């Protein structure tokens, strides 16, 4: 029973912390991008706009929930939930410190689990597009599905090199394997590069944010959503960002290892650094076109990831 209680506490703690992080991620994003554009970002609500995120959440909660008359009510309702739940589930095997005591579940195929679960979010997106009964939504959903399916391949393949080097798929094992030797970002730089690109695409962020390209499809799959349902998509997107950043920190940057500071802090620094890069990219780049994105995925990233696997295998076998 105490074990179950502990688990429950852990779950609640993790989800709360992550959702809070998400809320402040939005704030940080607006601040960072704002300053990159020489404007201050949110600044009126609270000290330096620090209460902007709670205010936004409140606004979204009390907003009217609009359902289009022609929408499929059930699907329209279930889609945001289907989008958010996998994103939160994917947090389970992420180790926030070295020993893994803050871990919810140490699964021996942790990374695979994350990839598999977070991929379920696509259902949410497709159903959102389908259920809204709008051409714009549907188009966004189709794009999103195609994009996530193809980049999932590259994402998975880019991590294979890491699995080969560490000999495990468990997040804890992978980060332990790096603490003795160098971080995998050095031997696996190709894999890291592919991972980064695929991760940006996977989370639908600029320069790969076609599903919600606001200037073409207005907002893509969530154009017909408002209020809390819209917030769910938002939460899912940012939670996904945190998940992919955590995988990157664990698999390529040595997880919670680092000197002087406590491991948890190190871990968070690494994750936040990744999030910062997400914002930075968003501030800088134009958007790819749909077909160009697919081309990059299939013709460039996947071969590169495969090459990385082969090279790692050869080195592993002969050295």
């Amino acid at each position, binding site marked *: 029973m105490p074990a179950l209680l502990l688990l429950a506490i852990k779950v609640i703690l993790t989800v709360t912390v992550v959702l809070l992080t998400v809320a402040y991620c939005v704030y940080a994003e607006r601040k960072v991008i704002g300053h*990159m554009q020489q*404007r201050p970002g949110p*600044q*009126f609500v609270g000290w330096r706009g620090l209460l902007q995120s709670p205010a936004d959440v409140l606004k979204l909660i009390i907003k009217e929930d609009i359902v289009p008359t022609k929408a499929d009510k059930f699907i329209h309702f279930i889609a945001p939930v289907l989008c958010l739940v996998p994103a939160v589930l994917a947090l389970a095997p992420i180790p926030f410190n070295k020993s893994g005591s803050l871990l919810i579940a140490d699964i021996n195929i942790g990374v695979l689990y994350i990839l598999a679960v977070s991929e379920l979010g696509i259902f949410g997106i497709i159903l959102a597009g389908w259920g809204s009964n709008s051409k714009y939504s549907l188009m966004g959903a189709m794009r999103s599905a195609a994009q996530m399916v193809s980049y999932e391949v590259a994402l998975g393949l880019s991590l294979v090199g890491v699995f080969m080097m560490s000999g495990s798929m468990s997040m804890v094992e992978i980060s332990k394997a790096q603490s003795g030797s160098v971080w995998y970002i050095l031997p696996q730089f190709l894999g890291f590069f592919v991972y980064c690109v695929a991760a940006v695409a996977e989370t639908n962020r600029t320069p790969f944010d076609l599903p919600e390209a606001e200037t073409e499809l207005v907002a893509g799959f969530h154009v017909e959503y408002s209020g809390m349902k819209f917030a769910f998509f938002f939460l899912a997107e940012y939670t996904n960002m945190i998940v992919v950043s955590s995988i990157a920190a664990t698999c390529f940057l040595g997880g919670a290892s680092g000197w002087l500071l406590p491991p948890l802090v190190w871990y968070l620094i690494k994750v936040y650094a990744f999030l910062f890069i997400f914002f930075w990219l968003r501030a800088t780049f134009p958007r790819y076109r749909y077909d160009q994105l697919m081309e990059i995925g299939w013709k460039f990233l996947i071969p590169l990831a495969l090459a990385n696997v082969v090279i790692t295998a050869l080195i592993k076998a002969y050295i």
Partner: protein
Amino acid sequence: MGIKEFIGWVTLKDLRQGLGVTLKHLRRPVVTYPYPKQEFLAEERWRGLHTLWKDENTGLERCIGCCLCEKICPNWAITITTSHADDGKKVVDEFIVNAGRCLYCGFCAEVCPVRAIRQSTDYARKVHKRGDIILNKKELLERGGQD
């Protein structure tokens, strides 16, 4: 593609330079200002809301009721009613500027021969009722001054 460009392409030179620009700006000061908190100061020539002025020495209204401003106004935003006083002098009974119709072209101030109607730097008039947007003579004189 030369070898140099190829190396640049592989090492993502263009993208790195772009990232450099945004990073450079991250440290630069903010150029916007928080509008409602910090007031926007219009230039001297600003063609804002109208004012009617009085004469400095006599304290009488400068307006002589020539109605040139009413005539030139392209949008018929000005309505003037005049009458004759007992001594035969023309008096301006009412002077109405419908700020809702006005397109702030500045012609009225430009043609007024006695510089009675002028435009202030007041750029933001806010009213709660639509009717309040119409300015009458009293308000116009209050907004103006003497010189």
